[in-house]
């Protein structure tokens, strides 16, 4: 009796543990072996190009089309043994007619191989502007690259600013930033009214990466770390939680006119492009579509639905219309240089050395334009939104030790309103998501060490 008891209490359980250990370990080995893939040690071919399109030009300027072309052959790891590429630009005056071919000539700058062409003066000076696309070929006439990706279907469009209004910001004086009215704030944390930070141990933390405001003044903040959005009503009451099936990771968010919530992911599955997800106001998934290009940068709502600024083409492409997704090939076909705005027309901006060119465009023609100069370096354009016939333009200005956002309201005579705001980016957000406009009010997303907040401004434009 004693021996059976011993066997039951000690031997059998130990034998079970040992067997369980062996079984699970064997299973782990089998699974690991099954999923292991031999890795590629041979360096692959490289063929890529970057191009900064002259979306807007000033009268009399010599316009050069410059392509940085990166080419390296298959199987050779030494990166200095690159390959030469060649190419041609197809260009036409205006937006109609035949393209003509201009050869791209090899050149270099800063140790980067380039292909360049000078736009013929007659085309560059055309009051309708010009359209173009490049066809690049890698070594041995191999891989082919169209820039932009839509080629002749959606070429780059360059528009001349025949009579821009000058606005000179001079040298920026830091330290006079305006804070605005705080309409909501939420602490970092794990609670129902807190906003999460992405896991990780490095600086800076990432959290509350984007927001949007509807026409009623309700604010939606993307709490991607918690896979949800937080909604506050126009009186700042909230937040209500909207669970979203997203991956997050520096995602952007936009509110559709019908209350739909769109989220642009920035990280794609292997060999795919990032996706835009659509949810209803309660967070139920309604659809998903891949972006046409690998580097979508910004999500907004256009007159017909969501539009995405896509790179490397630097074009705005619609990803949905009348609640139906637009597949990547069609996105490319419908690509535009400017952001289509709800009120109709487009806004085109180009940051160049020393300033910014901006234009309101309608039916392919510049309606109003501005040439903003600055002695202090300008960074990214956070917002460019028409308000009637004026333009609300928000741009970061920076030195090596300071930065602020400059808010400008511009009309045909120049600067109507100008003030600056702090940048307040303790946590990293998606790059172009810091401001939204709803009605005549401006909203700014900010964060500090205690949490996230939204401040509101009245830019005084009507």
């Amino acid at each position, binding site marked *: 009796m004693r021996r059976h008891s011993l066997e039951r209490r000690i031997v059998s359980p130990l034998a079970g543990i040992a067997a369980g250990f062996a079984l*699970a370990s064997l299973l782990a080995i089998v699974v690991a072996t099954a999923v292991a893939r031999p890795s590629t040690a041979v360096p692959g071919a490289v063929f890529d190009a970057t191009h900064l399109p002259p979306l807007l030009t000033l009268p009399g300027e010599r316009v050069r089309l410059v392509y940085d072309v990166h080419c390296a052959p298959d199987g050779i790891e030494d*990166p200095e043994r690159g390959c030469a590429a060649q190419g041609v630009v197809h260009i036409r005056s205006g937006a109609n007619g035949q393209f003509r071919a201009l050869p791209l000539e090899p050149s270099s700058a*800063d140790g980067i191989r380039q292909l360049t062409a000078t736009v013929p003066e007659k085309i560059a000076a055309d009051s309708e502007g010009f359209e173009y696309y490049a066809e690049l070929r890698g070594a041995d006439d191999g891989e082919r690259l169209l820039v932009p990706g839509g080629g002749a279907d959606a070429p780059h469009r360059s528009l001349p600013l025949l009579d821009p209004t000058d606005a000179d910001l001079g040298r920026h004086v830091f330290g006079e930033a305006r804070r605005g009215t705080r309409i909501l704030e939420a602490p970092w944390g794990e609670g129902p009214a807190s906003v999460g930070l992405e896991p990780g141990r490095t600086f800076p933390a990432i959290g509350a990466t984007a927001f949007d405001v509807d026409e009623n003044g309700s604010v939606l903040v993307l709490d991607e770390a918690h896979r949800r959005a937080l909604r506050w009503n126009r009186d700042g009451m909230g937040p209500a939680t909207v669970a979203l099936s997203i991956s997050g990771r520096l995602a952007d968010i936009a509110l559709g006119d019908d209350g739909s919530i769109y989220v642009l992911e920035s990280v794609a599955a292997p060999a795919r492009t990032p996706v835009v997800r659509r949810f209803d106001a309660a967070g139920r998934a309604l659809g998903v579509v891949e972006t046409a290009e690998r*580097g979508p940068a910004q999500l907004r709502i256009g007159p017909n639905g969501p539009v995405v600024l896509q790179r490397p083409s630097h074009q705005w492409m619609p990803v949905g219309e009348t609640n139906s997704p637009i597949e990547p090939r069609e996105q490319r076909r419908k690509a535009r240089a400017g952001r289509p705005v709800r009120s109709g027309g487009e806004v085109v901006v180009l940051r160049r050395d020393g300033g910014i060119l901006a234009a309101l465009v309608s039916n392919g023609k510049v309606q109003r334009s501005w040439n903003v100069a600055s002695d202090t370096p300008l960074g990214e354009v956070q917002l460019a939104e028409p308000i009637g016939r004026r333009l609300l333009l928000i741009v970061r200005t920076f030195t090596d030790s300071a930065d602020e956002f400059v808010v400008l309201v511009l009309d045909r005579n120049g600067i109507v309103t100008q003030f600056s705001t702090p940048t307040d980016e303790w946590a990293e957000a998606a790059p172009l998501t810091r401001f939204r406009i709803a009605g005549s009010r401006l909203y700014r997303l900010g964060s500090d060490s205690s949490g996230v907040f939204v401040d509101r401004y009245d830019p005084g434009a009507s």
Partner: protein
Amino acid sequence: MSTRHSFVVGLAFGIGLVMAGSAAGYHTRFIADNCNSAPPTPTPFITREGSATVALRARYEGYQWAGGCWNDNDRDDSPNDPHEDPGTGGEGGDCSGFTFKVWRESLVTSDAGFEQWGMLRNVHGPYTAAAFKAGTGAPNVTVSKASLVKMDALASDGHIGLIYATNPDGTDQIIEAKGEDYGTNIWTRAYRGNSSYTGVRRTGWSP
């Protein structure tokens, strides 16, 4: 409890132990199976073009804290790594390890010369992002952010990324090893204007 019952309980416990151990001791075989410690190839010169090639070959690969080894199969071979654990043995560099290899630097901080590291050479280098930001080491200098060009870097206290292109809206396309949930890729970023970031340049580029 019967003998059979106690065996089954023990079996379940044993399986549970292995699973818990596996979760706590996550470790891919990527570094062990693929990476080496081969010496670098001294190189008489480097160009930004060449470094762009090194960077583009790391694109779409993984991210590994303290890491510096990747292949070129355009996928993260060790996805879902626990965050910032140097022991997970996964594919990819971290942000500073990626920059070290792209800039083809020496392990000797007083040496500004050029070393070509193989993709599968597991090397991180002596610099953290903070060290790059401070311009520490002979090959690294801080420069004005407005003057940065392709293959220069923007570094903060905890991150560094390389400029790949500038965009019409004033942002940059940055090629960076961003984190385990991101891998290594090119994204639009507004680092340049952000005062947390400093411009950093590798010395000695050939034209």
